[in-house]
């Protein structure tokens, strides 16, 4: 069991570095470390992340957006080991700036070739990246309903 876990752990670690470098820059450092290497099945798992030449003493020192991207890199590292048939992302792009919104949607586009992605968002950059969207509204007070939504038509109508 330990061997099986360590194999998976090493693969996840490799995926983490790869996705992290996609969300930040190709020469950025990050790592996943077993706090107690002698007890892999129970040990805490530590994350180190050093985006863009910075040297934070812990991930707590990172900014709100940097933390979100780091956590997303870890989640997708797990996903790459065992891709689920579909993924639901509920407004995880809220803390991201416009540039990182682009990286987020590029990452999802890449993974959506093997899994279906359902993406809830308020951000226009993300809306522009999805193929099809449904608008949820409450025309009657307190009752939700669905309408089809097309970002390009909606944006054209706004201008």
């Amino acid at each position, binding site marked *: 069991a330990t061997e099986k876990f360590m194999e998976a752990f090493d693969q996840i670690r490799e995926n983490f570095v790869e996705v992290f470098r996609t969300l930040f820059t190709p020469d950025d450092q990050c790592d996943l470390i077993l706090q107690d290497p002698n007890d892999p099945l129970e040990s805490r798992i530590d994350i180190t992340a050093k985006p863009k030449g910075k040297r934070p003493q812990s991930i707590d020192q990172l900014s709100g957006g940097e933390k979100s991207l780091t956590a997303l890199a870890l989640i997708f590292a*797990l996903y790459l080991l065992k891709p689920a*048939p*579909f993924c639901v992302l509920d407004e995880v792009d809220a803390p991201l700036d416009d540039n990182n919104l682009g990286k987020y949607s590029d990452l999802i586009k890449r993974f959506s070739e093997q899994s*279906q*992605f359902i*993406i809830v968002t308020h951000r226009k950059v993300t809306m522009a990246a999805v193929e*099809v969207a449904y608008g*949820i509204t409450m025309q009657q*007070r307190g009752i939700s309903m669905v309408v089809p939504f097309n970002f390009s038509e909606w944006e054209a109508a706004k201008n």
Partner: protein
Amino acid sequence: MRLQSIELKGFKSFAERTVIHFNQNMTGIIGPNGCGKSNIVDAIRWVLGEQKSSSLRLKKMDNLIFNGTQKRKPAGRAEVSLTFENTKNLLPTEFTTVVVTRILYREGSSEYRINNVPCRLKDISNLFLDTGIGSDSYAIIELSMIGDILKDKEHSRRRLFEQAA
């Protein structure tokens, strides 16, 4: 396996029978604050077997039944169905289309169905075992989960690793 659609009726703010199709590789869900987007995510979790009311933002499970507005009475039950195309036979069944249904009645009883045939919650969980999908899956991601991973709340990192490994 490919997700095809979700159908909600009486589930949280979805008082009316509502169907959403997920034919694409990427489907967006948008709308103003409070319109019901996260309720759809809760519905997906619930029909896949979520049993913790706190994971569904509820004080108790029966709060997920449409509780009425000034102009409309509360619903007597909540029903959610998730339809899959069983491509690659990922699901251990000979059907090509699989519909998973969960119903909660206001008096407290529950029903579970696979392709409209009554079953136990256990049968639904077993259907998705090893697919990476489940109510507790790393495949349903929201901001609070991001926070938990960063603070490693209650060994959440550990648990995610064990699910994937």
